[in-house]
């Protein structure tokens, strides 16, 4: 233990003796680590944002539709499939005990009017009373759809925040007012709270109506998706199996045929995102790691110089009993200190830089423990990798030659 503290002391002495040299050497490492940390933070930030957006879809919600979400441009293979209808909805409701919430959704885009005011291209979504349990919407005003309204095709609507603000004056009571959706009179029963956007598309330019009402007017033209959520997230896989069985039965898929429907989830989208961006991200990290490589080479160069400068010192230390490992450790620790100091400063600079970039540009950043650990491991391995050769050279010096060195 004693020789370790001695080595550390020796390393510090030699570093403080050549301050400028130590600073410049560390600077290389600082820049290298800072670059990597900045890039990793920005990438992590981007990934996190995308992941958060996807999780808006619900981490334990399955989406049943005719087309899969990820089709790699081969959508035509699925064109022949029968559309999803309310038959499937009823089948799921009656035959899947794990399905706690079963919600149909289908959209149309149309104009909405109230008196003189008009909102164009509003997303009108047909759904049922359970919609808020899966989508987590809260009402600012009024109430949600009821089963009765769903069953009896009532003309009622819940306005999105943006639609409400366009159609009504601030402070106007929208409840029980009749608005025109595609020239049909519909009664407003509620207003949703602001929901924000999903990948740049506003979710507040939306109106919810009973699915059956929408079906009455748009019938077969609707593209229906059924959202299904289990009671608890850990039953997701059981639910998936139940759904497959129920859907195959109701759609009369023969046993030798493949499923003629798709069960989608957010993780498939996430996988797809990861797959497409992985190569790019890896390339960026690799390019930024080059700076660290160059910094490491700088360390090796300076360590070699310092070994040859201190040949005499090594000779003396060996002559009075220092072992090979002692010399080796002394120089390795010197390299490690350089790299660690550089690593800590570099990490701080990197996080600062990433934060700055996300302030002035729309690119988000995340301070990740992963990046910090990576930086530590990186700088340590740089120190060991580039320090071992000079340290080994010092350790192998013959004390007799070294003492004579001028």
């Amino acid at each position, binding site marked *: 233990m004693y020789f370790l503290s001695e080595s550390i002391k020796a390393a510090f002495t030699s570093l403080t003796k050549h301050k400028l040299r130590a600073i410049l050497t560390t600077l290389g490492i600082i820049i290298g680590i800072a670059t990597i940390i900045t890039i990793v933070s920005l990438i992590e930030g981007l990934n996190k944002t995308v992941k958060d957006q996807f999780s808006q879809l619900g981490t334990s919600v399955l989406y049943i539709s005719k087309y899969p979400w990820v089709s790699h441009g081969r959508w035509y293979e699925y064109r022949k499939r029968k559309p999803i209808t309310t038959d499937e909805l009823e089948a799921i409701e009656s035959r899947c005990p794990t399905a706690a919430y079963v919600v149909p959704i289908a959209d149309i885009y149309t104009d909405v009017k109230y008196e003189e005011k008009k909102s164009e291209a509003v997303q009108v979504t047909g759904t049922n009373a359970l919609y808020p349990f899966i989508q987590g919407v809260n009402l600012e005003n009024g109430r949600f759809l009821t089963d009765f309204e769903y069953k009896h095709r009532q003309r009622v609507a819940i306005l999105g925040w943006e639609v409400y603000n366009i159609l009504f004056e601030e402070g106007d009571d929208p409840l029980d007012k009749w608005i025109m959706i595609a020239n049909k009179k519909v009664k407003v029963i509620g207003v949703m709270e602001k929901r924000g956007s999903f990948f740049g598309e506003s979710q507040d330019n939306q109106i919810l109506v009973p699915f059956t009402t929408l079906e009455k007017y748009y019938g077969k033209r609707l593209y229906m998706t059924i959202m299904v959520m289990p009671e608890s997230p850990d039953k997701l896989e059981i639910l998936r199996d139940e759904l497959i069985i129920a859907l195959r039965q109701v759609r009369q898929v023969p046993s030798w045929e493949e499923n003629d429907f798709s069960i989608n989830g957010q993780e498939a989208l996430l996988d797809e995102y990861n797959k497409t961006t992985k190569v790019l991200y890896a390339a960026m990290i690799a390019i930024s790691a080059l700076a660290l490589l160059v910094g490491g080479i700088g360390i090796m*160069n300076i360590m070699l110089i310092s070994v040859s400068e201190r040949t005499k010192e090594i000779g003396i230390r060996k002559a009075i009993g220092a072992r090979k490992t002692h010399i080796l450790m002394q120089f390795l620790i010197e390299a490690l200190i350089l790299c660690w100091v550089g690593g800590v400063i570099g990490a701080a600079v990197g996080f600062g830089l990433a934060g700055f970039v996300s302030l002035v540009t729309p690119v988000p950043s995340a301070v990740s423990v992963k990046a910090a650990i990576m930086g530590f491991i990186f700088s340590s391995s740089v120190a060991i990798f580039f320090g071992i050769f000079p340290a080994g050279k010092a350790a192998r010096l013959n004390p007799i030659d070294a003492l004579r060195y001028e």
Partner: protein
Amino acid sequence: MNNYLTIHKILDTIKIVFHGIRTNILRGILTTLGVTVGIVAVVGMGTMAYSFQKEINAQFSVLGSNTFILSRQPMMMGHGGSWRDYWRRQRFEVDYMDEIMENCPNVKSITPYLWYNFKAKSKHEEIEGLGIQASNENVFDFSSYKIADGRFLVASDIQYNRNVCILDHKATEILFPHGEDPIEQRIKINNIPFKVIGVLEKETSTFGGEQNAMAIIPYSVAEKYWGRGWGLRFLVEALPDRIEQAMDEVIIAMRNLRGLRLEEDNDFEIFSSQMIRDAISKITTIAYIVIIGIAAISLLVGGIGIMNVMFVAVTERTKEIGIRKSCGARSKDILVQFGTEATVLSTIGGIIGLLLVFILTIIGNRFLPFEIIVPAWLVITGILFAAFVGIVFGIFPAYRASKKDPVIALRYE
């Protein structure tokens, strides 16, 4: 006499510089290596960016400089408009062609362009998703399609709704796997019989590698069986050098056709291949600058390495500096000596880096689907950049060397 002295001085400096580098080979190599890696990163990335950009330009100039696209939807989303607005636009009619031809004197020809995707069958085989391009005889003027066998579409094919098709190489391979002559054979597209009248040459595609199987049919036939599509586009060719005028004429004609009022925006899009290229390079340029910028950081670190080693060299050679100064060398000579040493080191690093880039290019060209070319200006910039790094990072240590007091320097041990 004066000239001779100058030349002598330069030669002298170079000799001293190389002596300085030679005495410590390993150190020289390691110092150079930093710059080498930096130059490989910067020039390598620059080369990739340049080659990729060139490829994109080539891909999008198929259209030719006199042609533009008229479409219901923009080529790329996200320029202010939302897809909901585009979705609501009326669809295009094939009749627009006649109107445009009549009202736009600067338009030479116009070609409808519509994609479908259907199942296709020959006697032996079938394709699940055959891309169908419905067009007219002009399509061959605009595209890079070359006929390998048979014939192109002609005007009468469109006029008389002939069920004929031209297959691309891939579709031919799948539908006629036994090498028989596909010309005059019958195939079924979405259960409708078509006669094969031509086969296209194999295209050397770069992006996406594998090209989809595709067939070209007369648009009148497609319209007859499958109705008006949402994705109908027109390729419009202007008279030579009249593209600007032709575009304006087409915009006016289209606004009339679509019955737009004065205050309404265009509910169609018009773009030339130049506009597509500009839009793409706007995105890619930012990406290139970021990537090359990141690569340049390693060059910066290499420069710092040079500075560090030069400081060491100056300290080590304090006595030498003292001797040189006392024998009559000026401060300027010392400055030049160390400055040159740093510059030579980094330039050598740069040259080695460039050689590595060339080697990587040769290897890369074997594996990448597009050709990589190292542009000459990038080579020159690379060398200049390396030299510049040497000067910038060498000047400070050299200055310090030149300011040494010869009396103290001579005494240095």
